Each structure stands twice: as structure tokens, then as C-alpha cells.
């Protein structure tokens, strides 16, 4: 028995070492960095300060946070509206078709998001396919500029993150006991009422995990805003990148990252509280 454990120790060692050095290490370093003073030129003075966090509260930066937040809320709301029915319909398919649908859903999801984004640029740009079609149909006279606007960014976000929502809703709708809906119907509930009182309530955990899975990345997907928004909208992600590369203020970038991480963690904890109360209790 003892020898077995010894073997397990050796197996686990690479994972422990790697994880501690390259996952925990950088994250701890980030937290330390966020409390350090930025050197005026480039680099860090290791003096404790809260200035980096205070700086986030400056109107310019606070505005960026609010704008990112607003964009994330808007995108997530639309993703819910579009993705929920998809996941729901998928769960109601016969099982053989479900698997195929899943495969087709996953395929574009593994394709580089840049490629998909680029495809949309070809379609939507001023001299693009859509304008060409609309013009030759005589629907419009001058090409419309679809790109480089707020709606374009929202569209890009929705497009990139939709599968997360669909998969979460699907997995909770699939696990659902459909006889409950039948029971509600047998007891005289209308289809709508049966849906809202039974199906929807039971799929809320899926919806919530979908919201988390889409909300968190949408705060940070700076390249979508970059490519589809044409520098019109600055998100926290773009701000962090700018501070890291051009401005060279790493402590400030670290402070913003810490705030983002804290927000993310709060959301995950809240989700666990709401959806898996029993599981958490069971573990504790």
C-alpha cells in the first residue's frame, strides 16, 4: 500500500511542479505586481501602493470598465435570447439526430475564431458580398457600412460565444425529466404555462452557466472589438493590452486584471450558490 502511494507521488510530481510554477506563480506575481509602483519609464518599483487600484476609479478608466460591462451585458442578453431556444430545441430532438447536431455545432466552434471573423468581414465590408447583393437587387443605392460600429462588435461577440450558451442550455435540458412537463400538461396547464413553470425553471442552471461562460470572455475578447469595431470602442481587454505593450505600465494592467479576476470569481461563486446549492453542501 505504501509503495503504491510512493508511485502516485512520482506521477503527480510533474503536474504539481508545473502547476505551482507556471499557473500559481504567475497569478501570485500578478497580484503582487498590482500593489507595486510603476516606474516612470518602464518596469516596477517594489513599493507597496494602492495607486493602481485608485487609478481604475479615474473617470477615463472607469468608463472603459462600464463600457465593457455594458457590451458584455448586451451581448450576453442577446446570446441568451438566441441560444436558449436552440439548446431547447436540440434537447427535444430524437437521440440520433441530437448527436449529429452536436457535432455540427462543435465543428465551427473549433475553427479559429479569427477565420470566422474574417469571413464576416468579407461579407459585411463596404465592398463586400452583402452590399453587392443588395445593390444588384436594387434595394439600396449606396453601400452601407455595417462594420466598425457598436452593433458590429455585439454581432461578433454573439457569433463567437453562442455555442457556449447552446451547449449549457442543451446539457441541462437534456438531463431534464420530460415527464414532468407531460404531468403539468395532463393536470391542465397550457403549453406556455407548462414551459414557464416546469421546463424553464429546470433549465435555469444551464442558462446561468451559459451566462457565465459567455459573460466572462466577452469582457476580455479584445480582438473582436479591435477588428470589427475599428478602435471606436475601448474595452478592458484592449486597455490591458495597451498598458502591457505600448504604455508599459504593468502594475496598472495587473490591477485591472485582478479586478477582472475578482469579478469573474464572484460570478462563479454566485452561480454555484444559485444552481448547485445541494452539491456544495454535500461536499462541505
Amino acid at each position: 500500500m505504501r509503495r503504491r502511494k510512493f508511485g502516485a507521488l512520482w506521477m503527480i510530481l510533474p503536474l504539481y511542479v508545473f502547476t505551482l510554477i507556471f499557473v500559481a506563480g504567475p497569478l501570485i506575481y500578478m497580484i503582487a505586481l498590482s500593489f507595486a509602483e510603476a516606474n516612470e519609464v518602464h518596469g516596477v518599483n517594489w513599493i507597496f501602493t494602492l495607486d493602481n487600484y485608485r487609478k481604475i476609479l479615474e473617470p477615463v478608466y472607469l468608463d472603459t470598465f462600464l463600457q465593457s460591462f455594458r457590451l458584455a451585458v448586451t451581448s450576453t442578453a442577446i446570446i441568451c435570447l438566441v441560444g436558449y431556444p436552440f439548446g431547447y430545441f436540440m434537447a427535444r430532438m430524437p437521440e440520433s439526430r441530437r448527436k449529429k447536431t452536436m457535432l455540427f455545432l462543435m465543428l465551427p466552434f473549433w475553427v479559429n475564431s479569427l477565420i470566422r471573423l474574417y469571413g464576416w468581414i468579407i461579407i459585411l465590408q463596404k465592398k463586400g458580398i452583402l452590399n453587392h447583393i443588395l445593390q444588384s437587387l436594387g434595394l439600396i443605392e449606396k453601400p452601407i457600412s455595417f462594420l466598425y460600429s457598436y452593433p458590429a462588435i455585439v454581432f461578433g461577440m454573439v457569433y463567437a460565444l453562442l455555442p457556449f450558451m447552446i451547449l449549457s442550455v442543451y446539457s441541462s435540458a437534456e438531463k431534464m425529466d420530460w415527464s414532468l412537463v407531460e404531468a403539468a400538461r395532463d393536470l391542465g396547464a397550457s403549453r406556455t404555462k407548462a414551459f414557464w413553470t416546469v421546463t424553464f425553471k429546470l433549465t435555469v442552471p444551464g442558462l446561468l452557466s451559459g451566462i457565465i461562460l459567455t459573460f466572462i470572455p466577452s469582457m476580455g475578447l479584445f480582438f473582436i472589438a479591435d477588428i470589427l469595431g475599428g478602435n471606436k470602442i475601448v474595452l478592458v481587454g484592449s486597455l490591458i493590452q495597451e498598458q502591457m505593450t505600448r504604455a508599459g505600465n504593468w502594475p496598472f494592467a495587473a490591477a485591472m486584471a485582478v479586478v477582472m479576476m475578482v469579478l469573474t470569481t464572484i460570478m462563479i461563486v454566485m452561480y454555484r450558490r444559485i444552481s448547485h446549492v445541494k452539491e456544495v453542501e454535500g461536499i462541505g
Partner: protein
Amino acid sequence: MNENRMKKNSKFAGFYLGLIFFLMYLPIGVVVVFSFNESKLPVRFTSFSTQWYEKLFHNSAMLEALCNSLILGVLSCLISAVIGTLGAVGLSRIHWKTKGVMEYISILPLMTPEIILGMVLMAFFYMLNLPFGMLTLLIGHTIFCVPYILMEVKARLAGMDPALEEAARDLGASPFRAFQDITLPLIMPAVLSGSLLAFAMSMDDVVISIFINGPKVSTLPIKVYTQLKTGVTPEINALCTIMLGVTLIALVLYFLVRRIGKKNRME
């Protein structure tokens, strides 16, 4: 009456799913189709041509990026397969108090927004004085590849009977032998499918790579990203189509391996 209503609903559902699928695949199709277009303007398909592929293959910077991406994908997936597989097996055998925490930290890279991971790694590697380039990229990619393999293997182990390996030990096999002959073949499908997933993720990553690639080294997705920002030539279409091909091959293999794994399990 009731059945009728159900049918109507499923028609709408079918239409809805079809529409979303159409929108999902449309941009990918457009990129592929126009990579074979002769005209430079991606508006109308004029005639079939492979000139953009030829141009691409005369572009040494692009080829280097392609090479880098493939090397990175293969190496990071091999290294993380070793770390992740051993780790998952080891974790299944110990019952320390720190186990849960370690597992949480190991999959943390998947739950951290990519931009934060990228930025943190950039600062961290700078502090360690590591030269930015292939080495930092390799470490970075391995960081987010390990969790995929760890999770796949862990799930597979959960469905496995630990008595099998114990039986081998009782019959006199050394721990190494028992692992090699019993456990490893059983978890191999999970190792492979996890690795292929990791490979696809590595081939796909822009956000983390862009922070840690350094000024001289570039990967395929980074090239695409910079081109998209500066100016688009149909060469990108060809490049994207190639990337698509590589990812697709990895995916097909992934599903094949998974199918074989499932069959084995059934037997």
C-alpha cells in the same frame, strides 16, 4: 390536434436550427470559396485559381509561421499529455487534503480570461528573464493544454475499475508494469482525444500567444491577426483554409479515437 401542434413546433424548430447553422457556417464557407477565387476582390467568384496558395508558399515568413504553429502544437500537446496523464492517474490514487485545491489550480487556466493569462505570463516570463520566443510560447501553450488532457483522462478513470490494476499487482507485476500493461491501454483513448483537443486549441490561440511570442517569432494565428488589422489580401483566405484543414484533421482524428474508445469500453 395535439400531434399537429407538436409538428408545427418542430417545423419552426427545424427552421430556426437551420438558420443558425447557416449563419455559423456561412463565413467559413465564404473564406474557403474565395481562397480559390482568381479576382483579388472578394465580391464575386470569377474563376477557379490556386494562385493565392502559390503566393503563400513562396512567402517564407508565412511558411515559418506555419512551421512554428505545427511544432508548438505537437510539442505542447506531447508535454501536456505526459504531465496531464500522469497527474490524473496520480490524483486518482491519493487522498490528500490539498488534492482538491491542486485540481482547481490545474484547471484554472481554462477559467481565466485569455487576456489575463497572456498578460500575466508576459510579466512573469519577463521577471524570470526568459527570452521571448518559442520557449515561452511552448510553456504558455502547455499551460492551457494540460487541463484538457487532465479532465479527459480524469473522466475516463472515473469509469474504470481500480481492481484491474490491483489484480495485476497481486499477480506479481511491478507498479510500472501494471501501469503500462493495464491502466495505460485503458486510458489511452482519453489521452489521445485530450491531446488532439489540446492540439486544436494550440493551433487556434491568438490572445495568449500575442503576449509571449516576442518580436521575432510568429505563429499562424498571429500572422492572420496582424494581417486582418493591417490589410487584407486573398492570401489570408488561403492561409485560413490551410489552418482550417489542419484543425479539421485533428478533429476528425479526435472523433475517430473517441469512437474507438467507446467501442472498447462497450466490449
